């Protein structure tokens, strides 16, 4: 649930899309977005959120403070 992509920072490289174990990332209107209801923060899959780890831009994929953290 809690990760989001900061649209102004995103370069549309799509690296995160293929790494997401939940298929929660897709391209929408020229930028990538994370579907909040599919994101599990990679809990149960990997130690670290894959989108954050692979993104080349610092602070582009961040916790969405408006939403509660994912609880497994």
């Amino acid at each position, binding site marked *: 649930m809690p990760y989001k992509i900061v649209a102004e920072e995103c*370069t*549309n*490289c*799509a*690296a995160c899309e*293929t*790494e997401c174990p939940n298929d929660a990332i897709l391209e929408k209107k020229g930028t990538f977005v994370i579907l909040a209801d599919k994101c599990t923060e990679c809990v149960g899959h*990997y*130690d*670290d959120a*894959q989108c954050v*780890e*692979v993104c*080349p*831009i610092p602070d582009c994929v961040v916790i969405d403070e408006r939403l509660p953290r994912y609880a497994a």
Partner: protein
Amino acid sequence: MQARIIPIFEHKPVGGCGATGGAGKSSCGSAAGKGDLPPEVWEKVKNHPCYSEQAHHHFARMHVAVAPACNIQCHYCNRKYDCSNESRPGVVSEKLTPELAAKKVLAVAAEIPQLTVVGIAGPGDALANPEKTFKTFQLIQSSAPDIRLCLSTNGLALPDYVQTIQDFNVDHVTITINMTDPEVGERIYPWIFYKHKRWTGRDAAKILAERQMEGLEMLTAKGILVKVNSVMIPGVNDDHLVAVNQAVKSRGAFLHNIMPLISEPEHGTHYGLTGQRGPSAQELKALQDKCEGDMNLMRHCRQCRADAVGLLGEDRSQEFTTDKVAAMEVNYDADARKAYQAFVEKEREDQQAAMQAELAGLAEEAGHANVLVAVATKGSGRINEHFGHAGEFQVFELTAAGAKFVGHRRVDHYCQGGYGEEETLETVISAINDCAAVFVAKIGLCPKKDLEQAGIEAVEEYAHQYIEQSLVAWFKGYLARLRSGEAVAVERGQGSLRQGAFVA
């Protein structure tokens, strides 16, 4: 900038490339011609502008930018930056889908008969986008089967895809290898993404180096030609690249391409922002010379964008933007390209024969003389560009063995709308200030005088003739003038390498 004195008569060790050049061999290196290479290798490289220096005068390549994602971060790369008049790797104006890329290839092939090669070089890493990369190759192969395929990678994912690369008939692969020592690597790569984890520091560099070597060995074992690209970063890996050269040579790499770091602050890269400088032309050449033993060294690389189109010295990508390609009606005509290739084959043989004939008597006259000269050319191996219209100069080294291509210098056009620009002329001169002469199809009186004052002779008398033959002919006359005292050896500069945006 520090000046360097180039002695006109300089001792050149015997052995290695060029020094012992036999018939048909102006040098080895990427200048290698028919007869210098096993026939099956020659067939693969003869029409590839990046793998053969000779071919780059005649043949065009295009990159299709279908691979935006990358799995590592390099200090010389800034993935956020894209400006339409900037020319450097890792940068494109627009992304392509595999389908549109295949159509773009057909559109370019119809328009540019010189096209022989399509490569995927990013803007990220070809193998960090395997689905898009191989889908594109599949589409191109079915619609334009005579086009050669190549790809460029940082090597991290390479071992996982060597078999696929072979299955898709990709017969040229470029790996960017900047180090084999993790201590050097940690100063180049802040992180890599490998096995679902971000690695940093020495661990990252160690994994990357191991994967690169493994991938290189696997490719050469399968007979796939491998070119290794290395970025020369003064103070970081410049000395170390000699060891890298040994490492890749011993693993069967075909060609080593040592490129100067591009690090202008406005590019926003880590190196650009922290003041890491790139090498001068003479520093680059010295390192290339050091590495050139029995290993082929590439010196004609233009460090092109991941969406470049055309001959290596030009970029016609603006003629083939996504909108334009989408609207084009495309007719695939393999015969026109075949006819052009046959013409070039004959032309190259003529050029080689002309140079061989001209070489007669040179060795005795030249001794250990070593002179650099610059050439204005639009391609085809001829001196056919006006001084004021040149966007780059090709640099040749003249020795007892003949004329050898050793590099190129990018410049702004001196002639702007019919008038020469004084400021531009100064930058042109600083780009070729290590050369004794500049060969042009034509030049105005004023720039000719200014060049003369800077110690650079402007030569027009070989306009539209073959480059190498003309240079050797001039060289003989120059040597005679030196002997008679009519010409004198002067102190020469370092040659500055152009870093900023390329405005065509």
